[in-house]
């Protein structure tokens, strides 16, 4: 019987002894890190900073056509009058062009920019709140905090332009509703601040960022002091704060050149272009493939969107470009196999785009870099700000820096006043086409949308007129936010 007692005892022991040590149930993932480690050192915080830039280049809501900031840049032009869909074959972004998508609470279009920018803001808030305790030098901490503030200010600027009513400098304070100012990590739903309050915060963030940030940076895909000034220039232009816009644009472009005409023809896909001040440096393992920027707007990527419904420019604008201007080669009025590049089987439509082009035809790669800020835009901001202040001669001279680079035959404009402003805006339209400005320019200048008389296909565009100041200039607040944030109120329907 002895062995049976032994068995009994060992059985009982096995039962008890398998109780494991305290830490047995503590497990940790390998593909993520604990949040507390993210700001433990400035090195880790740098990674958290970089993650925010990358969050601008990922697909939102699983929608291929809504892959971050580059998609939004295309859509800002799709919603204007200068980007024309060649035909009705491929209907990506038709809802945006018809102004249906951004006016539907449940559409991807209302939610994706809101979600994306607040994601940036949320991550920036985490960094701003935690960076003071990170191991590293004070200079490193300042640089990161400044960079996070700059990105937060930029994100609020984009949000308030979309979801708020236009900023009107003549009606200060702008008490119309903007977006909630979330400045610290929170889970609470906050009410909407006024447009004035949001712009005040944007200015505060950007100004503080400029103070904290260094001039140097690791690469062009990140913001430094100079880029922040460029952003502030945009903000000031939108707020009709002409002196600040002029000053900031000038400072921002200090030391930056314009590209050569040869470089202009290279396809707007390379961040090393000397004129690109800020952009996304697209590496091969960071691609969204068919969601990529060039997958939607280039002339030669082999996607159904490009093959079937190439994008074209508004004929009325194109017809004004002098043939000696390099920019006239960015579109082709009557494309043929000889004068235009398309992917295999791609259709050709009048006035179709050639501006954006990937290396190789057919291009097998989506690894095109994406421009966020170029010297030309800073020149145009500076010129417009000068013109709006009545500094006609200075404005014309500033504008001519750009125009003569694009058109060696050009002479400096002699226009003044509103005509000069219009000339500058015309240059914005042809210089920045496809880079995400037209809808915002129309809105900030309180202009109507007018697509009449151009080459718009009525079956595609459907909508031809929207009066200036109409409710439709505001994006609707997404339903998800309405449901989860009791303090939220919808824009006028």
């Amino acid at each position, binding site marked *: 019987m002895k062995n049976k007692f032994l068995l*009994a005892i060992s059985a009982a022991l096995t039962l008890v002894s398998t109780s494991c040590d305290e830490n047995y149930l503590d497990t940790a*993932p390998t593909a*993520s890190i604990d949040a507390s480690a993210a700001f433990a050192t400035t090195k880790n915080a740098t990674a958290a900073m*970089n993650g925010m830039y990358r969050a601008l280049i990922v697909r939102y809501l699983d929608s291929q056509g809504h892959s971050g900031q580059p998609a939004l840049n295309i859509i800002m032009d799709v919603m204007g009058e200068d980007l024309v869909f060649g035909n009705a074959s491929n209907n990506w972004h038709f809802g945006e062009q018809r102004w249906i998508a951004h006016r539907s609470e449940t559409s991807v279009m209302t939610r994706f920019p809101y979600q994306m920018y607040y994601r940036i803001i949320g*991550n920036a808030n985490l960094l701003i709140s935690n960076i003071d305790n990170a191991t590293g030098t004070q200079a490193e901490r300042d640089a990161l905090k400044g960079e996070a503030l700059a990105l937060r200010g930029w994100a609020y600027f984009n949000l308030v332009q979309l979801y708020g009513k236009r900023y009107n400098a003549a009606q200060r304070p702008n008490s119309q509703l903007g977006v909630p100012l979330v400045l610290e990590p929170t889970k609470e739903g906050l009410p909407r601040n006024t447009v004035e309050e949001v712009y005040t915060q944007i200015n505060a963030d950007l100004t503080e960022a400029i103070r904290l940030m260094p001039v140097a940076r690791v690469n062009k895909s990140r913001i430094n002091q100079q880029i922040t000034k460029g952003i502030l220039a945009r903000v000031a232009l939108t707020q009709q704060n002409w002196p600040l816009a002029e000053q900031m644009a000038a400072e921002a472009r200090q030391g930056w050149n314009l590209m050569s005409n040869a470089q202009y023809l290279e396809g707007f896909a390379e961040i090393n272009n000397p004129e690109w001040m800020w952009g996304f440096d697209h590496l091969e*393992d960071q691609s969204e493939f068919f969601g990529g920027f060039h997958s939607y707007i280039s002339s030669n990527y082999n996607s159904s969107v490009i093959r079937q419904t190439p994008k074209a420019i508004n004929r009325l604008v194109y017809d004004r470009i002098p043939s000696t201007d390099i920019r006239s080669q960015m579109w082709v009025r009557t494309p043929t196999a000889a004068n235009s590049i398309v992917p295999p*089987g791609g259709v050709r439509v009048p006035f179709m785009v050639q501006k954006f082009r990937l290396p190789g035809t057919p291009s097998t790669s989506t690894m095109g870099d994406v421009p966020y800020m170029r010297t030309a835009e800073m020149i145009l901001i500076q010129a417009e700000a000068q013109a709006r202040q009545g500094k006609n001669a200075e404005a014309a001279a500033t504008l001519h820096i750009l125009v003569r680079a694009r058109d060696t035959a050009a002479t400096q404009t002699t226009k003044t006043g509103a005509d000069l402003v219009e000339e500058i805006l015309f240059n914005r339209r042809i210089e920045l086409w496809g880079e995400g400005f037209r809808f915002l320019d129309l809105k900030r200048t309180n202009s109507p949308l007018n697509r009449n008389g151009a080459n718009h296909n009525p079956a595609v565009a*459907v*909508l031809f007129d929207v009066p200036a100041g109409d409710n439709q200039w505001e994006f609707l607040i997404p339903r998800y936010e309405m449901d989860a944030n009791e303090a939220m109120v919808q824009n006028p329907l």
Partner: protein
Amino acid sequence: MRIRYVEFCLLKNAFTFQKIFFTCIRESNHVECSTNYNLNIKYCMNGKKFTFFLLLFLSAQMVWAQSIVKGVVKSADDGEGLIGASVKVKGTTRGVVTDAEGKFELRDVPANASLEVSYTGFTATTVRVGNRSVIEVLLQADAATLDEVVVTTFGSAKRSSFTGSFNKIDAADIATRPISNVVSAIAGTTAGVTTNAGSGQPGAAPAIRIRGFGSISSSNDPLYVVDGVPFTANIANLNPDDIESMTILKDAASTALYGARAANGVVMITTKKGVEGKSSVNVRMTKGFNSRALPEYDRVGAAEYYPLMWEAFRNSQAYRAANPVPLATANQNASNQIVSLLGYNVFNVPNNQLVGTDGLLNPNAQLIFDPSELDWWAPAVRQGERDEVNLNFNGGTKTSDYFFSFSYLNDKGFLIRSDFERYSARLNYNAQIKKWLRTGANINATISNSNQADAGGSSSFVNPFNFSRNMGPIYPVYALDPNNPGQFQLDANGQRFFDYGNMNALGIPNRPQYGGRHAIAETILNQNYFRRNVIGARGYMEATFLKDFKFTFNVGTDITNRNDVVFGNPLIGDGAPAGRATHEFSNFTGFNMNQLLSYTKTFGNHTISALAGHENFQENDNFLDGSRSQQILDGNVELVNFTTTTNLNSAYNIRRVEGYFSRFNYDFKDKYFASFSVRRDGSSKFFQDVRWGTFYSASGAWRIDQEEFIKQIPAINMLKLRGSYGQTGNDGGISYYAWQPLYALGFNNANEAGILQSSLGNRQLEWESSNAFDVALEFSLFKNRIGGTVEFFDRRSSNLIFAVPLPLSAGILSETRNIGTMYNRGVEVELNLVPVRSKDFTWSIDLNATKIKNEITRMPEETPQIISGRVRREVGRSIYDYWLREFVGVRPETGEATYRAIAFNPANSFITETGDTLTTNFNNARFHYNGSSIPALSGGFTNTLKYKGLSLSTLVVYQIGGKVFDAPYAGLMGSGGYGSAKHIDRLRRWQNPGDVTDVPRMDVGRTADFDGGSDRWLTDASFLNVRSVTLAYQVPASFTKKASISNLQIYTSAENYIILTKRRGMNVQQNFNGDIDNAFSPARNIVFGLSFSL
């Protein structure tokens, strides 16, 4: 005839054995043996059979008597021999199994022995041998099968004494059904259990829900336990032919010992074992066909299509808000442009005369080719074949038994490039090594290869269900010849080729619907498959000691090694133009170990049993995946054959559970039963302060039929009242690291490393718990002709885990929290009726019905209402109550969709004569509750007819009530979309002022307002599904005997034979939450089978 022979006996002496020889003389059935051995012998153990018998004399000459008994076991109903019935000598483990005619023969039966005779589905009986040498045993069919063994958590129980709620599916219920995944066998058979339709992808399983929906965002799936150890591989790795039984444990009392994983019920699967005394070879072969079970939605044809789209364009001009185009101009524009908008003209009239300015199709228009050329389903589907072979060998002796099986399945789906091929083998070996020590191992290996249809994304172009469904009826599958109307172009080999929709270089128009895409071509050219190798092993050691104690050690593992390959071809689709491939290697290992110490003792009328145990459970999930693009050589999809790495990723995740538990059972006179259990579980998913939870149960049963006053009522064969209450937990379905705030790696920016916030974490997050009450009356009446169970249950889930949507402005989408409480309360009824039971003919009916009420009873103060998707959760509502904008109808004046308004807005609202404020702006449409996806009643009924060897069995699954959101229908009802298919209900659209209809006007400019996801798309979800039909014929033994085979059965069987729903094509059973999308719709499988034994 006298036969003289020698027999031996094993003499047991302390711990040694000694062989003692006898000389025996057999005459007729009488044997006399004698030995010269002269010792004080008390026992003799006979060889391997462990027969005990008493030596009567201690003298040198010993004589005793024993007999050979022959007999036959028959059904008392029809007098047919019962094949495979067990006949055992009472008090021993010796026994045999009856042959094909029900006959048996037992040797060495002691005088005055009794035989225990049992057979599944019949009441076991004991007969005294007496001095008979030929015995006929008649068994009574027993609907309630009181002595059936129920496999329970960490043990087993007799049905009669079991205090919990369960249902059992036997091998016989599974055998003839053409199911590739054994979970499919559960549908409709069990009260309280609902299953969805499952995908038509071969090898896929339906999801099952036991007693409602216990959780909102944690898992609602039951725990699967195979041979005593939780199964962590995919159930598709089990060969249905290996399954002896599946026991579905429904209430807390029967599942509580699995504590934290048992809240959604437990399915105990037991695989087959060898049977003592009988070696056999069993063979089953089937050949079958798979086809589509659900028809397609009714869609308009080419002639109806053009006028609809003409209107869509015309109205977008004539009705636009700013600068509308005059109607006559818009009409003319539409007639001029309709073909250019749609790309194709499939009629023999000029483009601008196809649809007149009156909006009607030109009456002279004739199709230029056969309409079948416009059918995108025909090339996508096929008659899939299904082949299956099962072979098993089994046998056993007194001390060991074995079961070895091999099976091969090749199941080709009805959609092209969808199949499932499985090789599986199992070895189950058990041995009584010592009298006190029993051990065994059950090892299975499965190799699966499966081509997967790309039917995952409801709106993805590569998904044939989306593509073929929504393709306008005017687009040819193959490339037309622009120079010869009605003819197709041929390639260099003289073959037609696919029209990708962007082949304008060949002179054919671009197709606006899915241009440059072709799901058929892509399905053919792409690859998407997995190879999966699974090894499962279960081992145990069971030692009995100190008479009443038993110690069991179980260990088990399931190791899944899987390789997924997805290849996008360079010609068309997502892989174009360069080609791309993704390979993923993953290893998923589940490891489980438990130690059980049990004690059982009977004192007079009292029997007690106690159990203490410990369980350790771990899952390791490891993967490596990589994607590359730019294919170098055609035909090779290995990553080395691509140039550019676009993704390379790996992770290793661990989940651990640790549990201690105990159970105490008490039984008085086999009449009153009680059971108590408790378990303490720790989970690595929760923070250390809250990770341990205690779960318990108490239950009891009263065998009323054992009371004297009931025994006197002959009509009552069985009557049992039972009840239980208990608490179980749930941590399934959430992240392995749910409590931890995390930053995700991999958000690199240019060449700098990047991380991004991925979860908030929650240190307070704790177990979801389920408190379940259950009471039931089980009965069997009138010689077991009417049996059944009526059961009430109330299952309360508290601490519900939910990913609470946060404001987007918080920067992160959700936080996982414990949010509230809800109950699933319901009544289950099961009835087993045998209206006819005669010698040759039996008719039996099994019915079950379940009514469930699901209601949320508590929500957190900070979020009293949570809207997620199409439902809103709040107190007093169910988990699946629709919260949608209210569609009112179509405004006769304008044909606009109208909704009840949130607020009056002069730009888009109007007030009706009855004072309702309606709006035509979808964003101003008011939300309201409108029903739920949970049906009023659901269940199934099985009808079985048997005439001699012929049987016909039909299983029908039904649901009454509930609503689905028919998104594919909504898609087909769109008011715009040049080139997209339209439902025939679109023909009822508003056309002219004054038209009264519920279908808004066609208008591509108003799609958001007209087609929005309102309650307009809710549809009654009642359905009737003839889930299984089997016609079988058992060839009489008299025929098969000559061929030396037995149990020859030939049969034909069908799954999903008929599905009837409110709207043709609607896949109501797709999801429990009522969502329908363009998923792989269920398959109809019809097979012909043959099975026999050697």
